[in-house]
């Protein structure tokens, strides 16, 4: 079986992981247009080559990032999301929308 290196738990069988989609930057839902939001929700780069994407280790529910080659099926690097997110992301609902 293919082995993936979990940044938290070390090397594990790939069946222990769930693919979580392309890594993309979320536009601010309060200020972006409908078209921008639809693009974020649905559209995909779907590159044939090296991609950066979310993965989760099922048993520990730990989310991390991976760089993977989508043609050769090689996992190049896995790393903690801290590398990208170095400050807190607020998911608070927009004030006007709160009843």
């Amino acid at each position, binding site marked *: 079986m293919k082995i993936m290196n979990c940044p938290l738990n070390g090397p594990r069988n*790939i069946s222990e992981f769930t693919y979580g989609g392309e890594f993309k930057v979320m536009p601010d839902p309060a200020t972006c247009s409908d078209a921008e939001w639809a693009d974020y929700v649905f559209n995909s780069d*779907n590159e*044939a080559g090296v991609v950066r994407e979310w993965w989760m280790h099922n048993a520990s529910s730990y989310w991390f990032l991976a760089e993977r080659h*989508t043609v050769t099926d090689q996992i190049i690097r896995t790393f903690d999301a801290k590398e990208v997110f170095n400050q807190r992301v607020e998911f608070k609902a927009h004030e006007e929308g709160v009843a």
Partner: protein
Amino acid sequence: MPFNLLKYGLSSEYPAEVDLPPPTELKSSYDVVIIGGGGHGLAIAYYLAKYHGITNVAVLEKSYLGGGNTARNTAVIRSNYLTSEGVRFYIESVRLFQELSNEFDFNIMYSERGQLTLAHTDATVRAFRQRAEVNKHFGGRTEMIDRQQIRELVPTLNLDPGHIPVLAGLWHIDGATARHDAVAWGYAKQAAKRGVEIHQLTEVQDLVIENGRITAVKTNRGTVKCGCAVQAIAGASSLMLKKAGIRAPIHTYPLQAMVTQPFKPFLDPLVSSSALHCYVQQTSRGEIVFGGGSDPYPLYNTRSTLDLKESLLAHAIEMFPFMANARLMRQWAGITDMTPDYSPIMGLSPVKNYYLDAGWGTWGFKSTPICGKTMAELVASGGRVPELIKPFALERFSTFQQVNEMGATAASH
């Protein structure tokens, strides 16, 4: 066919027939360039020539005819989808398939055995009732059947696999299979006969787009001007869309399938179970074809994995326990361009005269004829979208009007 049989059966000579004329140089310009020489591309070319008299058409194929996902599917033909939009479209496709051998004067080995889908939960039984009614409403032949009827149809099926006994079945009488290569060859031959040029080993490497219109395609054999172009390259849709500067919601996954050694005929219908993520059918050669869902993560590679085979076969053996001793002969993978709603992306694009035939996940082969017919209509009319494919426009994702076929698609091709 019967007339020819009589005529040549009585004569001592049989005329040698040229299926495809020998390759020629590319012309500098065509009215229509079709990118991709699989079933879909060839069908579009054929219907353009047949119904619209448009024959200044080039089909450009980077490899050989029908060698991509036309050769890599499991050749299931059915129309028992869920939504009105989907069912209308697939029913029309099944109707065209039924006449195809006669139309081509070439045997596509269309074999109407019916398709049986198994329900293991109450929720699935309810969904099946809806699918049966929608299918009947649009003129298809689908009904719910109980365990006794399933037993009569498929005596070798284990009705109590492990923890999920079979409760009922969705019996789709129109379900069929055909020889996928023959479908591509039939379209190619008939299109070529009407003057369409088919160029193999001709890869479209770039698109020339000026003022929002496509004017030419660049190939490994030089640049070719075009009045309009259609992309029909399942499995690589996103890569060509990028060249046209179009963003789309496509994720590309492999789907692995395999066949066993041949057995005596024991399984007439195509049998599938979405709870077991598995579908099983016996070919006319006696081999058993197994297929399942797409791989768990995206990939542009047809490699094989043992873990997927193990899990798929474990389920197949639950359905047909005696097959535990069967030997596998071949395995392969197709590349599926999955969309979020499991429906295709067809019709217009942001580039005015560039038409899309994309987003073919696990539903491409069964759509070949209707896709060819409707896309030809679209091209011939210069961009008037036929009613049948209006719901599949790319823009449905920005207007939030998806056509959800997930439940009727996943692992029950």
